[in-house]
């Protein structure tokens, strides 16, 4: 069914990583897949394989472009992984942005945030800034590893709204890892659960 293939935004075919059954998965444009599972079940390793950060078997397609068809850094520019703990290596916020920052207000920052010193940022501020940094690169696929773990409830709502509107506006897709079942209910159209080395659909309709 070629029509269906062309529509798919992110497709995993027999993706193999150690201690996990091969994963087959399709996410349609504008959709978000929620991913849950115990710590150590392989959620992060799965995201790393999709971003091509670790060796793996099988194939991943984003907008019908196979992972190994493009250079690794081009792939990661499209398929961007947001790690659970963000890293900062220069002194000020703006030095970490390769493009004009967008959506600063949507996450509750003023324009002056770009001049902030990294050493003065709290862990929650860094987490929100790392989401801005990711989105300013305009990725097509967002791999979000517990993106709201350090945030208070009002900022959690801001991040959820921003990601939702980004996905629908750009027809992008996301995989959202979280331990909070109600959050995954709010943000995702389909949900998967990782346990005992197998990825299972949750409440498939």
């Amino acid at each position, binding site marked *: 069914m070629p029509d269906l293939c062309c529509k798919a935004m992110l497709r995993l075919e027999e993706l193999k990583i150690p201690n996990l059954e091969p994963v087959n998965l399709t996410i349609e444009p504008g959709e978000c897949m929620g991913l849950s599972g115990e710590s150590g079940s392989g959620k992060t390793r799965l995201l790393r394989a999709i971003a*091509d950060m*670790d060796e793996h078997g099988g194939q991943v397609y984003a907008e019908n472009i196979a992972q190994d068809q493009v250079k*690794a*850094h081009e792939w*990661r*520019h499209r398929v961007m*992984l947001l*790690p659970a703990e963000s*890293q900062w*290596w220069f002194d000020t916020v703006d030095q970490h942005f390769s493009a004009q920052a967008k959506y600063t207000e949507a996450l509750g920052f003023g324009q002056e945030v770009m001049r902030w010193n990294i050493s003065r940022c709290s862990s929650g501020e860094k987490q929100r800034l790392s989401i801005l940094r990711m989105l300013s690169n305009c990725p097509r696929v967002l791999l979000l590893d517990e993106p709201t773990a350090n945030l208070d409830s009002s900022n959690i709502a801001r991040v959820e709204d921003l990601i939702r509107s980004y996905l629908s506006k750009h027809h992008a897709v996301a995989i959202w890892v979280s331990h909070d079942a109600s959050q995954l209910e709010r943000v995702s159209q389909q949900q998967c659960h990782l346990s005992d080395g197998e990825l299972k659909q949750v409440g498939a309709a």
Partner: protein
Amino acid sequence: MKTELILLTAPDLMLASMLVLALIGLGVRLGLGVGRTLTIAAVRTTVQLLLVGLILETVFSQAKLTWIMSIVLVMMTVAAWEILARQKRKLKGWWGFGVSAFSLFISSFLITLLALIIVIKADPWYTPQYAIPLLGMLLGNTMNGIALGMDRLIQTAWQQRAVIEQRLMLGQKDTEAIREIARDSMRAGMIPIINAMAAAGVVSLPGMMTGQILAGSPPVEAVKYQILIMFLVTSGTGFAVITVLQLIIRRMFDSRERLRFDHLLRESR
């Protein structure tokens, strides 16, 4: 006016050794814990230098290419091992040795060769009085530069592996993700020789020049040689550090621009 070289006799050296013995004695008395290492180092320097003196005397009188090349080989092998021994994180065996030896070869060896043939125009080019000390000086400095640059690169990259991976995740190229660390490592490898050049003659009199003056050369002649050596040593060290950093960075990432310390380092357990 030509001054004769004053020859040192065994009693002269004995007198100097008394100073070291006095130092060892004082160290032991104050319980500073340097007695043992100092004794070993003093004995080592005496035995090693006497042996080298004997060997060089034979080689100088023979001036055979095969002899000189085998000495060169021994010097380079020892230098390559020394570089590896000074690394905090151990590189995978033969690969690490190969990288050190290769960069020593293309810097120290080739530059010595160039200097002998084009600048000094020794006849034959392998005249041991020129070849051996020149290579020795280049090897010693290059070895330091490589050891420092390599250690800084691998240590920093290891400590900042999360940062490097974060930069890769943001779509940066592997060379971009490690750029600042590479720059830093280059500086670390070059600092000793840059300091030596800046301080030469003002803060310190370089060893070779001092030796030549002590042996009766006119100071200006000694200075000319020293400038030659400084330039050779600087370019040798620079090229060697660049080569080593490039080779290690290439090995640190795989074809899919992933950080791969498992390719680079021996498993630590």
